[in-house]
């Protein structure tokens, strides 16, 4: 057994885990964070994406022990606890733009989108597609996912008080 101390969605946990425990197993089976899902056996699908110290990682591809001393955010922690029913701008955009069908890829897509937007607050459609290359969706054809990420980016930018960029096709004065 290895002792780990990890903060998940704002709560600190001190636990003994078997070294071979994957982070996703720890999240789902020990902490009950079943919002993070497993979609493949090959590290391709990205459905299990969570943030580790703010950066997107595939929780099926690291050991729980590797998260010792770090901060993990799952899809369940996008909105601070206590704000029941509130949605994060990325969640709201996925809802409004109909960026999901079966929904299985959605938690990972949203976490990967958060990672991307933290690095690049105003990505082009091309950059969104590149940025989400580690996430597969078998249903939507990606169009609405790209739209949703773009919409979320715009909302996050205006929430931050950044000057909105000139809409496409509108000449600036």
């Amino acid at each position, binding site marked *: 057994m290895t002792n780990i101390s990890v903060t998940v969605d704002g709560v600190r946990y001190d636990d003994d885990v078997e*070294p071979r425990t*994957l982070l996703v197993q720890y999240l789902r089976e020990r902490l009950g964070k079943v919002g993070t899902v*497993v979609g493949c056996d090959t590290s*391709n699908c*990205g459905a299990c994406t969570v943030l580790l110290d703010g950066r997107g990682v595939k929780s099926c*591809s*690291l050991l729980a022990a590797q998260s010792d001393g770090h901060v993990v955010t799952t899809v369940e922690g996008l909105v601070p606890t206590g704000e029941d029913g509130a949605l994060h701008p990325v969640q709201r955009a996925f809802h409004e733009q109909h960026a999901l069908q079966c929904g299985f890829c959605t938690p990972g897509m949203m976490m990967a989108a958060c990672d991307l937007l933290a690095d690049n607050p105003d990505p082009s459609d091309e950059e969104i597609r590149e*940025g989400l290359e*580690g996430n597969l969706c078998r249903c939507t054809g990606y169009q609405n996912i790209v739209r949703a990420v773009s919409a979320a980016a715009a909302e996050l930018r205006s929430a931050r008080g950044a000057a909105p960029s000139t809409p496409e096709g509108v000449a600036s004065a």
Partner: protein
Amino acid sequence: MIPAAFEYVRPDSVEEAVSALRQAGEDAKVIGGGQSLVPMLRLRLALPTTLVDLGRIEELRGVRDDGDAIVIGAMTTHHDVLGDALVQRYAPLVAQATETVGDRQVRNLGTFGGSLAHADPAGDLPAVAVALDAQMVVAGSSGRRTVPAADFFVDYLTTVLEPDELLAEVRVPKLDGWGVHYEKFHQTAQAWAIVGVAAAVRRSNGSIAEARVGLTNVASVPVRGRAVEAALAGGEASAGAIASAAEQAGEGTSPSTDLTGSAEYRQHLSRVLTRRAVSAAAGL
């Protein structure tokens, strides 16, 4: 999808890591970011008795300037390599190839040294290390030794690292005023290179003074394109001269046949991608 059981140690220093490796014996394995190893553990393609996790060793992270070279710590993540000003300035070929490794999530955790020590012939960084004459600094029980990249890779997933050794850092000679390009051919996003070519070219006026070429996934180890380099050196920096030099790109390669392509197809790609990579590096 669950790895088999193993012992796990988290040393705080390189010395502790080396002594943990020595104690654990032959079947121990070093884990960096784990982006190659954890998938292999899950599929039980790797069955180490002990994992030595380098994640806590701060001295292995980061990039520093060391005169005529930059030194990249083995545990520097691909993400941090990409954002590093020294890498961008003195080793842009490393940055270009790193950008094509895996996907964002993999680059956030995966490490520069891990990609090299894993020695997958389809990995993008080994060919770059070979092309740039990088020096691999290896730490072991009897101290440190430096191994040229050309001698570091021994076979498929095999390097010169002894069971009680680890890759500590990599010295990458500075290339100032060279044009560089990494050309990778793959079928889908996040897939491995079917073939990749790393090229660096130093031009002087209308000719190519010097060139370096490294090939990914055309043998069990990365291949230095010596014949192409010799054909380019001193020649014209023209499309025709580069195309004819690139015809030599199959030399020294022994590609395998797999689902993504036959050996013959890989040799064809070696020539085509060498032409493209060298042309781009020469600014044509």
